[in-house]
């Protein structure tokens, strides 16, 4: 499953025994392990038929996204498609950063994600470098 491979690349966490405690369905396969990869297949959640609803609609309100985009003085116009894609990308981003932060919580043997887990993820992961200094 592509989701799992992708996460493995990002998270680069050792296959620690801590992860197996989250083993739910007993299948040895990927997506239910540890950092629960359920991006394309949230079968544990109340029903959403996974990839279909995940691809089609944006959860974030496009109007709000557009307002944000317009805050940039250099932006003149944005096509509807572009607003949609940014909304979708932002959703993916939120999922990604939450999962990455979770690794740190797990290392701390906690089940609650805390602010410091986020800070750790931002420090450690290159793609999040743009966030440094912006969250305070």
């Amino acid at each position: 499953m592509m989701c799992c491979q992708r996460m493995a690349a990002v998270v680069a966490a050792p296959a620690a025994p801590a992860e197996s405690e989250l083993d739910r369905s007993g299948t040895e396969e990927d997506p239910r392990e540890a950092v629960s990869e359920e991006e394309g297949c949230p079968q544990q959640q109340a029903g959403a038929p996974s990839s279909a609803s995940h691809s089609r609609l944006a959860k974030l309100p496009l109007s709000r996204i557009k307002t944000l985009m317009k805050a940039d003085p250099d932006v003149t116009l944005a096509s509807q498609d572009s607003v949609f894609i940014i909304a979708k990308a932002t959703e993916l981003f939120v999922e990604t950063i939450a999962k990455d932060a979770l690794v740190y919580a797990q290392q701390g043997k906690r089940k609650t994600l805390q602010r410091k887990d986020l800070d750790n993820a931002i420090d450690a992961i290159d793609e999040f470098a743009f966030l440094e200094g912006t969250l305070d």
Partner: protein
Amino acid sequence: MAERPEDLNLPNAVITRIIKEALPDGVNVSKEARSAISRAASVFVLYATSCANNFAMKGKRKTLNAGDVLSAMEEMEFQRFVPLLKDSLEAYKKGQKGKKEASEQKRKEKDKKTDSEENDKSREEENEEEEERMEEEETKEGEGEEEED
């Protein structure tokens, strides 16, 4: 358009939902973490927009398009998002097309009625109506493509 701080944030409920769906059951998220993620998401939008806009400007375009955003994702090292985004975009465009066709259909039906009456006069009125039709077409085109304020 006044930009209040609330406007620059994304709705908490949605952010929370996205986070919860991404994490396994039994994992909680502190309020501070949630709020930080929400802010990070806003920063992400701003950063992505700025990157995408650079691509638009390179292409001498004033309108940001989906391709610019995809290029921005690669630039920002989020290339792994790209295939998913492309799929979503396809589905979205189909949905939009359906909507557009539906409203076009309505227009056509409306026009049909008036057309059959004007069949004989069509030439005469062509000149007069030309301006009106042009306006209509412009709105029609403008609807599906860009959003301007």
